[in-house]
């Protein structure tokens, strides 16, 4: 840490959304010409903190000072005018503008050009335009995009989109550049280019604070790391120290769910299970970003299969693709005897795949009962339109049976069946989300981050319920960041990194494998693609006694 006045000083910042505390008394500082990484597991509050710094979110309490000036109550455009520029997690290019126009749009506000004068076809607006164009070309030169200045921004590949986002932020005259996941979705060559550009910025007297999940980028760039978990700063310091910190490792890998005892001795292997879901060579792209890359996995009937990996590894995309929300760019998804590629989402539910999505996605104004009934919609609809108005007796019986199953699993939902879903606690909400998915009587239940934001006891309870469901014959695909909890109940697991399967095997084997901690916290992979052995931090993470 350098002496002197920090460029940015954050202290005591608290942000809550409704009842959820996103940032809890956060204090961070950034010195001039530093490159600081802000890391932490999903839901830690990193983007929220970035939003506070950029003026997009006002904190409930606490202060943010930039060059000694308080900025926490200023709107985003004023914060930007003071010299803080940002990029977005999803890049957010102005799609209908050209590459150069995107950068020029970043510079307009600084010119202070008025509305009236802009309607003259000569004089000031033309001069300003020429100046903006010149500046834009300069910034495009810095990020190496000069060649593509006249192309539409929308057609750039992922890596160049990120670079354009940075050039646009530079054009606003920012001195402190906030980057939200600059490395997400980039391939190795693109990452190297990005890292070069960011270093060049620092050499040009810019200060960088970046949020990143990709540890290879963090490892190569960061001079200092700040780690957030559940809205609090849990560690801060030099990269290697932070990575060895037991708190950090625990924050990333999660705590064991302690659902032990419920786990049957005979873990089923794929050999003796008939495959229910068969994903082969699946690729998915989001406007150029490769989210899933030639991914294959199988799930046998009656198995719990966990998919673990760091944020941005492609876990949720995998589930959404199977559920039919995201189109495939290649490969096939086989379920039982049929192929699910191109099948509409509601038909996939009808085919027997239920999903409890990330963040639960309940209908907050509807009652618990209504939420559950809606989970049964495809069945009711399949029985004929009239049944939406009057359910036949057979259907009602079937609905009641399904409700009973759910209420047996989660008695609390029965107690609260009349309450609106928005008033449930996080754990109850997760139970309702699972219950709603079960209402369609699926053969395969997919869960996306069921433990997200929940207390450890609640996580154990939910994991134990999943085991019960499995024992009743249900097949479960569980996506989790909380790898330890997931591996404890799963039969088999796949480890995802950058849209690829980097390791797979029985959960018991994987639980002790360094591949997992490497997928979350490793950055050796960038220098040496083979996972190097004998890395002390990794072993500390892998040994169960490390907490």
């Amino acid at each position, binding site marked *: 840490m350098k002496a002197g006045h920090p460029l940015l000083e954050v202290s005591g910042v608290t942000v809550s959304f409704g009842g959820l505390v996103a940032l809890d008394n956060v204090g961070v500082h950034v010195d001039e010409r530093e490159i600081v990484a802000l890391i932490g597991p999903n839901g830690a509050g990193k983007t929220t903190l970035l939003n506070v710094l950029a003026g997009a979110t006002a904190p409930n309490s606490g202060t943010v000072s930039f060059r000694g000036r308080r900025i926490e109550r200023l709107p985003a455009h004023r914060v930007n005018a003071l010299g803080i520029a940002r990029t977005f997690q999803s890049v957010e290019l*102005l799609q209908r503008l050209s590459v150069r126009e995107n950068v*020029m749009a970043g510079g307009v506000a600084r010119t202070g050009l008025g509305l009236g004068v802009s309607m003259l*076809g000569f004089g000031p607006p033309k001069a300003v335009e020429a100046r903006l164009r010149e500046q834009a070309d300069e910034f495009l030169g810095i990020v190496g995009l000069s060649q593509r200045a006249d192309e539409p921004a929308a057609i750039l590949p992922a890596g160049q989109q990120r670079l354009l986002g940075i050039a646009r932020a530079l054009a606003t005259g920012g001195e402190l550049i906030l980057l939200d996941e600059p490395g997400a979705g980039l391939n190795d060559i693109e990452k190297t280019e990005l890292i070069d550009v960011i270093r060049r910025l620092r050499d040009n007297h810019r200060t960088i604070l970046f949020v990143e999940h990709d540890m290879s980028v963090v490892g190569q760039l960061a001079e200092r790391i700040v780690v957030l978990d559940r809205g609090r700063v849990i560690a801060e310091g030099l990269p290697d120290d932070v990575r060895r910190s037991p708190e950090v490792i625990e924050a990333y890998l999660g705590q064991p769910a302690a659902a032990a005892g419920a786990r049957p001795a005979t873990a089923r292997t794929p050999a003796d299970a008939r495959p229910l879901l068969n994903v082969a060579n699946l690729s998915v792209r989001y406007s150029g970003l490769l989210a899933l890359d030639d991914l294959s996995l199988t799930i046998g009937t009656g198995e719990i299969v966990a998919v673990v990996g760091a944020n941005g590894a492609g876990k949720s995309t995998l589930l959404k693709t199977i559920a039919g929300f995201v189109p495939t760019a290649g490969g096939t998804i086989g379920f039982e005897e049929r192929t699910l590629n191109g099948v509409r989402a509601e038909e996939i539910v009808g085919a027997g795949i239920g999903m409890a999505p990330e963040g639960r996605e309940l209908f907050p104004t509807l009652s618990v009962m209504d939420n559950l009934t809606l989970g049964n919609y495809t069945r009711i609809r399949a029985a004929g339109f009239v049944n939406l108005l009057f359910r036949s007796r057979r259907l009602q019986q079937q609905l009641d049976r399904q409700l009973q199953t759910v209420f047996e699993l989660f008695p609390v939902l029965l107690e609260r069946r009349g309450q609106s879903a928005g008033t449930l606690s996080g754990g109850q909400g997760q139970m309702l989300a699972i219950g709603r998915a079960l209402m369609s009587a699926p053969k395969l239940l997919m869960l996306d981050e069921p433990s997200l934001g929940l207390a450890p006891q609640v996580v154990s309870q939910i994991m134990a319920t999943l085991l019960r469901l499995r024992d009743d014959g249900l097949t479960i695909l569980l996506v989790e960041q909380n790898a330890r909890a997931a591996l404890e109940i799963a039969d088999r697991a796949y480890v995802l990194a950058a849209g690829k399967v980097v390791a797979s095997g029985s959960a018991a084997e994987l639980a002790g494998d360094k591949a997992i901690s490497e997928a979350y916290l490793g950055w050796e992979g960038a220098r040496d693609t083979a996972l190097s052995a004998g890395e002390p931090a990794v072993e500390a993470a892998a040994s169960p006694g490390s907490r």
Partner: protein
Amino acid sequence: MWRIGAFTLLIVALWFVENNYVLNLLVVIALQTMSALGLSLLMGYTGQISLGHAAFYGLGAYGSALISMRLGLNPWLSIFAATAIVAGIGWSLGWLVFRLRGHHLAMATLAFGVIVYVGFVELHDLTGGPNGLQDVPIFTVLGTFLDSDRLIYPLAWGACILTIVLAHNLVHSPKGLSMRSVAENERVAASLGQDVSALKRQILMLSAAWAAFAGGIWAHYLGYLSPNPFDVGFSIKLLVMVAIGGFANIWGVLFGVAFVTILGQLLKPFGFYDVVIYGLLLVIVMVFFPNGLLDGLVTLARSAVSGLRGARA
């Protein structure tokens, strides 16, 4: 710019047409184009919906008429006074409604349109109620009354072409980039230092002023006013014109206005049912020609031509 030159020549040439019906239609097209262009800047270029634009047109018309009648101001002055007042109303309305977005903004502007229309009908002492205002002063130039289509034509089209030039310059200036970034993504625009709400207010103010000026010309040209032309139906009609033009396309808007105005003449036999046809038209254009009818037809024609070429080859 050559387009504007060529277009001006065309308009000058059309002035010599010996047909009052055609001239009258052209004057109506000029005035409605001014209003529709403002709406296009607001909706197409800045991404903010307004379902109450007829109100600005009406306020300009009633405002200028009343100022000249009650205060005895010359129409040439009252029209500028009314335009300034309506611009102020537009700015204040923006301050009020731009905390809303999407459907809510649509509802709020619609409500504004309805309130203003009800005002025209119900404020008997001021507006004459449903009977409207009689004997609105007519523009004079050197003692000549501009009381015919042929005489008002240069004023209407002069103002309209000026509006086209200003709009064209604005959207091609750096400010136009700001507008387009606000339309695409307000969060990003704010992160780039742009004061999003101020910009939206300015554009609403500008588009209110243009509509008001057109309304003023209309009032002093007809010589009488009644509330009916300024109802919500006219707001919707302006929306259809802009939609047919492709929202963010200045020449497209001109085409949209001409198309809808001429269609309106053909639909006269349908009486009040013409609204149904406008509605249908809007749906068809939005679904099949999201970039506007002009653009859609050009694309169709191009593919037909290349199809023919392909068949010949």
